[in-house]
C-alpha cells in the first residue's frame, strides 16, 4: 500500500504527463507556431533559422519527455485515453504519430509542388505569383510569401536519396516493433496460463509474469520514440531553411488541428453513422 502521504509528496516533485502535454501543446500552438509563421510572412524572414530550431527542439524534447515518463508507467503513454481526445486516439501508433507519417508529409510537399510545376510549366516558370496562387488555394492558412510553396520544386538528388534511405530504414524497423509487442504479449499470456491458473491468478504471480515483459514494452516504446525523433531530425537536416520551416509548420498545424475546439465539438456532437456508404 502506498503511504497516505505519497500523493502529496508526488504532487510536490512531479507532474503528470497529461499536464506536461497540455503545457507543451500550449507552447506549440500559442507561442512557437505563431513565431515561425511570423518569420515566414516577414519579408526578411527574421530569425527564421532560430525559430525553426526552437520548434525542432520543442518536438525533440517532447519525445525525450515521453521516454522519461515511460519508466514510471508505459501503459499510460501507450494507451492515453485519459489525456488524448477521441479524434486523436485512432491515429496513434505505439502512443504517438506513426513514423511513416513524417515521410508521407515530406513526400506530399514534393509531389504537390512538382505536380503543380508540371501544370504551371505551360504558362510560367513556376516562380511567379500565379504559381503561388494555385498552391495557395490549398495552403491559404499559411499566408506566406510566394516562394515558400515552390520551395519543394526540383528537390536535389541527394535529398531524394536521403528520403529514400529514411523510408527504407522505417520499412525495416517498424514491423520489428509491431512483432516485438506481439511476442511480449504472447510471453505474458503463456506465463500467466502456466503459472497463475493453478494458483487462481493471484496478484503476486501475475506481477512476476508481467514484470519482465513490461520492460520489453518500455524498450519497444523507447525505440518507437527514437525512430520518430530520428526521422524528424533527419528530415530537417538535408532540407534548406524554407523546406524545414514548411515541414515543421505543417506538422505543428496538424497537431493543433486535432485539438481544434470547434471541430472537436462538431465531432463529439456528430451522430452521422459511420460506414454510411458500405
Amino acid at each position, binding site marked *: 500500500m502506498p503511504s497516505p502521504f505519497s500523493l502529496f509528496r508526488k504532487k510536490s516533485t512531479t507532474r503528470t504527463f497529461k499536464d506536461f502535454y497540455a503545457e507543451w501543446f500550449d507552447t506549440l500552438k500559442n507561442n512557437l507556431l505563431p513565431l515561425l509563421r511570423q518569420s515566414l510572412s516577414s519579408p526578411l524572414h527574421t530569425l527564421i533559422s532560430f525559430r525553426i530550431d526552437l520548434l525542432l527542439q520543442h518536438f525533440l524534447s517532447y519525445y525525450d519527455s515521453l521516454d522519461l515518463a515511460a519508466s514510471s508507467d508505459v501503459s499510460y503513454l501507450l494507451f492515453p485515453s485519459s489525456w488524448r481526445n477521441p479524434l486523436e486516439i485512432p491515429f496513434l501508433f505505439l502512443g504517438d504519430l506513426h513514423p511513416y507519417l513524417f515521410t508521407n508529409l515530406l513526400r*506530399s510537399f514534393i509531389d504537390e509542388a512538382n505536380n503543380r510545376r508540371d501544370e504551371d510549366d505551360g504558362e510560367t516558370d513556376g516562380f511567379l505569383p500565379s504559381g503561388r496562387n494555385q498552391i495557395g*488555394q490549398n495552403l491559404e492558412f499559411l499566408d506566406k510569401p510566394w516562394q515558400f510553396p515552390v520551395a519543394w520544386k526540383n528537390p536535389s538528388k541527394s535529398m531524394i536519396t536521403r528520403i529514400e534511405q529514411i523510408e527504407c530504414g522505417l520499412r525495416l524497423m517498424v514491423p520489428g516493433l509491431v512483432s516485438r509487442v506481439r511476442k511480449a504479449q*504472447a510471453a505474458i499470456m503463456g506465463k500467466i496460463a502456466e503459472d497463475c491458473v493453478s494458483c487462481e491468478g493471484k496478484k503476486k504471480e501475475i506481477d512476476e509474469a508481467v514484470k519482465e515483459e513490461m520492460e520489453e514494452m518500455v524498450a519497444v516504446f523507447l525505440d518507437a520514440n527514437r525512430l520518430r525523433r530520428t526521422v524528424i531530425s533527419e528530415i530537417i537536416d538535408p532540407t534548406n531553411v524554407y523546406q524545414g520551416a514548411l515541414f515543421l509548420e505543417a506538422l505543428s498545424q496538424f497537431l493543433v488541428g486535432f485539438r481544434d475546439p470547434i471541430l472537436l465539438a462538431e465531432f463529439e456532437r456528430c451522430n452521422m453513422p459511420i460506414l454510411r456508404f458500405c
Partner: protein
Amino acid sequence: MKRMMMSSSPSSYCDQEIEHGEREEDEEMVDELVRRQDGIAERLQCMTFYKRETNKRSEELSWDKYGLWREEQKSRAARIEKQLKARWELEELIEEQLNRFHAHYNQAMIPTRLKDVAEVLMPKWAPPQELTIMSWLGDWRPSAILELLRGLARSSSLSDTTGVDQLLAQLIHEIHIEETVIDEEMAEIQATCILHLPFSPLNCNRSGGAALRSIQAEFNKIKRVIIKAQQLRYKALELVVKKILNQTDVPEFLVAFAGVQDAIHQFAEQQRLQKGVATLPLKPSGSI
C-alpha cells in the same frame, strides 16, 4: 446415438426372460452360471435332503447377489444418465457462450458513431496496463487466445494434450499472418491521415460539413479494420472451442479464458491505484 443407448437401459434389467444377445458381457456370464446351476439341480433330484438344502441355499445366495448387482447397475445407470443430461446442458451452455462472443465481437463492439471508434480501440473501462498486457485493436489479441491455450496445455490443465502443441503452433502462425495484414492496413491509415484529415496541410476541405465528411471517410476505413479484427478474434476463439479442444477441455478453457481476463483486470486496477499515472519531474532539463 450415445443418448439413445444410455436412456433405454435401466428398465430392461427387470425382465428375467431377456434374450441372450441383448445383454452385456457380465450379465451373460451370470445367466450362464444360473442355467448351469438349474441343470445340475434337475439331474441330482435323488440327492439327500441335506444336499438339497445346501443347493437351495447357494441358489438363493446367487439370486440375492444377482438382484443386488442389478440394483446397483440400475442406480449407476441412472447416475450416468443424470451426468449425461448435465453434459448436454454444458454443451448448450458452451454453444450459448460462443454465440454471446459472436454477438459481442461482431455487433456490440462495432462502432456506430465517430466518437465510438476511440472507445472501441482504447476502452476507458479497461485500465491502461490491462490493454498493454493483452490488447490488440481494443480487445484480446487473437493469437494470445491461442497462446493462453498453449500455456494451459503445457501446465497440464487439460485432459488431452496429445498433438495440441503442434496444431497450436501451426494455427498461431496462421493467425499471426492475418494479424499482420490487419496491422498493416491500420498502419496505412495512421501513416496517411496527415494527407486526408481536414486540418492536414494539403487538404482543402476545411469548412464544417466538408471537414466532418473527410473525418468520416477516415473513420470508415478504421471501422473496416475494426470489423476484421473482431472477426479474427472470434475466429481464434471458435478454433479453440470447435477445432482444437475435445468436449471435456472446452469448459476448462472457457473458465480459464474468463478467469485470466478477470485476474489481469484486477491486477491492472490495483497497479493503477498504486502507481498512479506516468509522471515527469517538475523541472525537467532541456527546453520543456
